[in-house]
Structures are given as C-alpha cells and as structure tokens.
C-alpha cells in the first residue's frame, strides 16, 4: 500500500484526452437521438418543470450535453495525486461534447424533414420535429440547438474549472429546483396539511410545474440556506463525532427517536394520494430489505424473490377472506400473519434446499424458474379450487387493530401499518448484519470455500438467509393483500423480482440506508411495476430508465447510491491501478515493502 501511494505521488493527473472528448461527443449525439426516438421529449412534454420555460420533455434532451460534457472532463483523483490546473481548454472540450450532442439532434431534424421512417419508428413524427424546432421554423430550431448544446456543454466543462465549492453549490441549486418540481404532489399535499396553501400557490403553477418566480425563490433558498447555517451544522457534526462513544450513542438514540416520531406523525399531515404512494414505497422497502439480506449480505442472486411475496399474499387471502374458494377460516389478520410467516418460512426452506447447492449463474436461473412456477401454480386450473386461478381471491378484509381498520380505502392507516413493519424489518436487518450469522453470510458472499474451511456450515447458513428473506417478503405480501382487498396472479410477475433487485442494486447491496433510499427514489418517483410514482408521465419509460440506471450503476458505481465513502475510493483506486498497470505507468509489485 505504502509503496503504491509513494509511486502515485509522483504522478500528475493526465491532461485533456481529446479522443475521450470526441468519444463522449459521439455517444452524447447518439444518446440524444435515442432519447428523441424513444418518444421521451414528446411523451414528457406535458409535465412542466418551470412553467413556461422548461418542460420535462426538453429536460430529457437538455441534460445530455451538460452531463456528458462534465463526465468527459472528469478525472478520478487518487490519494497522493495532484490535480492538473484547469483552463480554457477544458471549456473548449466541454463545448465540443455539447456540440456533438446537439449535432445528433440537428441531423435527426434534417432526416425527419426529408424522410418518413414512421413505420418502424413510431416516434418519427411531425410532433417531434415541432418540438425539436421549438414550434418555430426548422432552421431556427437547428440554430437554437447548436447554441443550446454548445452552451450547456461549455457549462458542463466549466464545472471542472470553477472551484469545487462553487461546483457543489451550483449542483445543489439545480437539484433543489428539480426536486421541488418533481416532488410537487408530495409537497403541496404536505403543505396543505399544515394549512400553507398560499405558499404552494405562490411556488407552483396551477397546472403543474414551478412558476418562474417560485423557481427563483427555491434556487435562492438552496443557495442561501447552506451559506447561513452550513458552518453551524458542520460544527455540530464535528462536535458529535468528537464526543465520547457513550454520549454519541445517546445523541444517535435521540435523533432516531425524533425521526421515528416524525415518521409516525407524518401520515396525518398528508393527503390520500401521498399516503397511498408512500404505502407502496413502504411495501417495496420491506421487499428490498428482505432481498438485501439474500443478495446483499449472503451473496445469493435470487431472481425469483417475488415467489415469497406471492405466498405471503395468497396465504393471507386464503386465511382471511370469506370468498376464499377452497378453505375459508376467516381468521383475523394478526392471527393469519403468524401462520403466513411460518408457512412462508417453510416454503423458503423447501425452495431453498435444492437451490442452495448451486452457485452463481446456475442459482440465478433456477430461482428465476421457481419464481415463475409459484405464480403459475396460483394461476393453474389444478389449484383454482384453492386459489381461484385467474379470478384470484377477492373480498379480503382489512386489518382490525382495535381503534380502527386498516384497509385500502384509507391509505393513511395502510402507511402507518407499513411503517411499523418497516421498522421491524430495519431493526432485524441491522441486528443480523452485526451478528455472528451476518458475518458468516458476508464470508460466504466473499468466498464460499474459505468460509467453509473456517467452519461455517454453508448450507445451513445460506438457507437461513433464504428463510429470513422469505419472511420479510411475506410481511409485505400480507399487508399488500389486506391493502388491495383482492389478489390475482398478475400481481406477482417476474418483473416484480427484477424491480426489487434493481432497488437493492441501485441502493447499494448490503446497505440498509441505501436500500431504503433506492426504494424511495425508484418506486416513489418513477413508480413500481404497477404503482404509479410521482412522475406518472414516466410510467411508459420506467423500464427503459431502470435498465439504463442499472447498466450505469454496474459500470460506474458498483457501490450503490448511498455508498460507504471509503469503499468507493478503494473500488475506484483499484480500477485505476489496474488501468495504470496495464499501461505500464506504475509498478504494482507492492510486495517489496513488506520485508
């Protein structure tokens, strides 16, 4: 380690790699054309970000030059490496990338005007051309794109020229404006709960999107608040970090209690739509936390996780619904839940026992199969006497909790119930992660053979992960059943497994906070397999975005959305060292220092 960083300190970050800039320009152009032809600009044009200046449709194109230019200019700076002075050349490089991105669109405009390819490409339409030419003449539109693309690219390049502090301020402001606009439904709902309609009327346009004045206020606040209180917060933070561990634990406990109390009070200030949305997010948080144990901790790639969600949901339906076709004990939900948990655990054991002997790709494929088999069993005529086949089971009662009933028509109660179970799941995950069992899971994830050689009973330990994951999924299934009131095999498509997996990967495998954040962003904003998110317009592009996000995450941020900072640096450092070693730039024979 020491030898390598000594070697590195002699390195200066390399200068502008023009070939890389050109590559980014080309990819930017192609991405713009792809986005345009995927129909995003036209499909999302109805959603305002800032009324009348910017709609989501234009944003879908405008981010490309800016982000690609700033990505093209970024260089990973490692420990002991000195950063190169940035200058006007970086601006030029950014402008080049931006130009490339808009050139793609300009070529597309020429092509749309002269050829008709609407047959294979449904979005090759006059509407797209109108949108791309800003509802003016095509020539003017092209000129505007040229200017816009280059300017945005220049700004993207400038991100590296300005000091880091300025850069983070600018990004914070842009993100704040975007977030306030995206979270419109949630924020209006919340502010209404506090009787602050006047504020939302001021910020938001009547038919969606920020008013220009509102946007300016939000931007100003995002700029000023950190300036005014940022240093104070920093101060408190360092004071907490410097506290003795006993005291720090007390502060953490206090924060946790306050947070929990806020979460419990929150539903009462929210309207129906937002509560419903958050309840859906909560159901996915439960599922994702369960899968996080299986995939994130134990490293078992389970692609059929939805099976346990289905078993939980169907068992609840059979045990509580008077309409259950075969067997209808009409048990109260809490009693049913105990049976559900036990039964799903047993199903987990039965599916797990044969599957667990396999590894890697084989295991993934077999679990995929099992997930589908379970759904097809619920759908089958053979078992329709029990589970109703395609008709499913209806009339599932809500949950009687003494002071009221939790049912789908009252999303607030559902959200509260989900919150309670999420808290349980978080606590269980956290305790398990730091237990002996959790350590054994991580050992298996890292190297199964060696874990076995250390005395870990790998078969049983992996089965435990499967069963714990299954039980957490069954919680979600049981609540889902009572919430929706009816249950059909179509609720348990393979897509659900995939989306939960995406949530776990995007959030950061094995990271509880990350997984929750992942569920909030993906399910809350973009939407679940059937549940709409805050950006309802996105529903038709949801899978496209999920896929793109997944590829990008795997390539660039394998550590997830909310990474452990140290691990990020290690991963990137490793990657960089490998590259450098391949190019023969540094001597990686790091064994010599250990004599």
């Amino acid at each position, binding site marked *: *380690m020491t*030898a390598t960083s000594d070697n590195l300190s002699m390195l200066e970050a390399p200068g502008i790699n023009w070939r890389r800039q050109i590559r980014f320009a080309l990819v930017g152009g192609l991405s713009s054309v792809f986005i345009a032809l995927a129909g995003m600009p036209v499909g999302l044009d109805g959603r305002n970000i800032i009324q009348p200046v910017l709609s989501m449709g234009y944003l879908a194109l405008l981010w490309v030059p800016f982000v690609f230019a700033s990505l093209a200019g970024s260089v990973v700076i490692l420990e002991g490496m000195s950063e190169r002075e940035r200058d006007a050349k970086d601006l030029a490089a950014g402008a080049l990338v931006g130009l490339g991105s808009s050139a793609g669109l300009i070529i597309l405009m020429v092509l749309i005007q002269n050829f008709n390819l609407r047959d294979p490409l449904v979005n090759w339409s006059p509407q797209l051309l109108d949108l791309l030419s800003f509802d003016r003449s095509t020539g003017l539109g092209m000129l505007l794109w040229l200017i816009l693309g280059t300017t945005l690219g220049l700004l993207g390049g400038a991100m590296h020229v300005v000091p880091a502090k300025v850069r983070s301020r600018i990004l914070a402001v842009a993100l704040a404006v975007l977030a306030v606009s995206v979270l419109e439904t949630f924020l209006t709902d919340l502010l209404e709960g506090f009787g602050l309609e006047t504020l939302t009327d001021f910020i938001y346009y009547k038919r969606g999107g920020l008013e220009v004045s509102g946007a300016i206020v939000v931007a100003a606040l995002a700029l000023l608040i950190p300036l005014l209180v940022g240093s104070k917060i920093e101060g408190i933070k360092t004071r907490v970090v410097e506290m003795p561990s006993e005291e720090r634990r007390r502060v953490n406990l206090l924060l946790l209690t306050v947070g929990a109390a806020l979460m419990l009070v929150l539903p009462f200030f929210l309207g129906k739509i937002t509560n419903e949305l958050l309840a859906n997010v909560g159901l996915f948080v439960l599922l994702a936390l369960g899968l996080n144990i299986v995939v994130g901790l134990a490293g078992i790639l389970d692609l059929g996780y939805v099976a346990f969600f289905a078993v939980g949901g169907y068992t609840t339906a059979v045990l509580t619904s008077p309409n259950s076709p075969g067997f209808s004990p009409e048990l109260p939900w809490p009693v049913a839940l105990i049976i559900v948990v036990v039964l799903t655990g047993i199903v987990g054991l039965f599916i797990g026992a044969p599957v667990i002997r396999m590894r890697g790709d084989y295991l993934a494929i077999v679990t995929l199969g099992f997930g589908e088999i379970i759904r097809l069993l619920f759908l089958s005529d053979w078992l329709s006497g029990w589970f109703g086949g395609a008709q499913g089971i209806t009339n599932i009662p809500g949950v009687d909790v003494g002071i009221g009933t939790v049912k789908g028509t009252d999303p607030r109660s559902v959200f509260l119930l989900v919150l309670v179970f999420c808290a349980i799941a978080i606590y269980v995950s956290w305790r398990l992660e730091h237990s*002996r069992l959790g*350590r*054994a899971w*991580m*050992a298996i994830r*890292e*190297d199964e*053979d*060696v*874990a*076995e*050689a*250390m*005395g*870990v*009973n790998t078969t049983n330990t992996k089965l435990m992960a499967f069963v714990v994951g299954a039980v957490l999924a069954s919680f979600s299934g049981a609540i889902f059943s009572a919430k929706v009131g009816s249950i059909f095999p179509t609720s348990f498509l393979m897509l659900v497994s995939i989306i939960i997996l995406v949530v776990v990967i995007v959030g950061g495998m094995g990271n509880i906070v990350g997984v929750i954040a992942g569920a909030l962003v993906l399910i809350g904003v973009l939407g679940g397999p059937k549940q709409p998110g805050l950006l309802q317009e996105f529903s038709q592009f949801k899978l496209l975005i999920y896929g793109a996000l997944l590829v990008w995450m795997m390539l660039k941020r394998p550590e997830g959305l909310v990474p452990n900072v*140290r*691990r990020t640096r*290690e991963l990137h450092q*490793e990657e960089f060292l490998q590259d450098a070693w391949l190019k023969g730039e540094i001597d990686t*024979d*790091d*064994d*010599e*220092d*250990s*004599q």
Partner: protein
Amino acid sequence: MPLLELRGVNTHYGAVHILKDVDLAIYPGELVCLLGGNASGKSTTLKTLLGMVTPTTGDVVLDGESVTHQSTSYRVERGVTMVPENRRLFKRLSVKENLELGAYLRTDREGIANDMERIFELFPRVKERMNQKSGTLSGGEQQMVALGRALMSDPRVLLMDEPSMGLAPALVQANFELIQQIHEEGVAIFMVEQNANMALSIADRGWVLQTGKVVLDDSAEALLANPELRASYLGESGNG
C-alpha cells in the same frame, strides 16, 4: 498417537481416480510437507483431510476417531484449520472481521480476545491495519492476516496449501520463517508445496505424491539427498 491420519484413502471426482491408497499420518507438533507436481492430488489430499471432499474408500482419522463422514466444521472445532492457497482473504471485510471469522466456531470470548492479542504480538503490522479492508493490503500483509485468521481458531494442526505461491521471491523466505515461528509455538503444520527445496529445509518429514500415489515417504534430510527427487523437483525449483 497421530493427530490426523489418512488410512488407505481413495478419492474420486466422478469417474476420475484422484487419490490412490494414500496413507499418511501427522503427529502433534511436527512440521511435515507434501510435495508433488501439478495435478498430483496435493490439494485433494488437503480437502480430504479437512472434509471438503469425502473419500470413496478409506478413513480420515482425527485423534484416533474416524471423522470420514463428519463435516468440515466438526473438524475445525477439533483443531484442524486450513490456510488456503493464495491466501484468499475475505477481501471486502476488514482485517478484524477476517480474524473474527477465523474464530467463527469458538464461543470463549476471553480466549478469542487473548488469541487476537497474541496475533497482534506476532504481526504488529496486522494491528496497524486492523480496520482496513483486507483486499487493500499488500501481499505480505495479506499472508500475515491469512495466517492470523487460521490461528484464531486455536488450531492443533495447520494445513497450508502452497504457502509460498503468489508471493514475491523476497517474501518466500520471510514467510517460511513465519511458519517456523508458528510451529515453534507447538502447532503441527502440514504443508503442501511445490517449492521442495525451501519446504524440506524446515520440515521434519515429507511425502512425495505422484499421480495420486505416495511414492516417497521419508525424513526431510533423506528426501533432500534422494537422487530421484533431486532430478525431478529440486533441479527445477532449486533457485526458488
């Protein structure tokens, strides 16, 4: 009485006959080595001793008790531990977590804490790196952690799979010195090596395995002097 023994062991992978009537015995506190070229069955011998492979016929005997059909954890609990080839640390876990996993089957907190201290005394560098991810350590440091991890199970016999493989030449000597140091604390060591010269220079006894059969079984000095062995192994690795 031998600590760990193979008696007439035959092992198959499917139809392939790997180990053929292998007999060997490791006595408490000795340092022995198993030599052999590629695909001679060295690693299979190790895996059979530890229970990761079950022999088709024959017995694995630990403290006079047949453990042929007992699990790996059963044997680890009774003092058999392996240091795997190429160290194979749990790379994304911290050094401390790696050491704790070595003591996975132990429940005596005090004993674990004592052994951890002992390892820090043996390898002060490991203590410095305690909270670092083990994958970021240098080769030499990783070797120390691998040895430490194995020692954390409080073993009576340490099975080492190619301890010098993948180490820089300058480190090989240091590594053998470490092994000797551990041996002097009373732990029996069974070492599988290709680096015959170096291994025999510290071992008491040794075996030579060829296509699954033990062809030589003698004291280290006798093996070093054996002309056949000199020709087939020591010539090649003599400079190692």
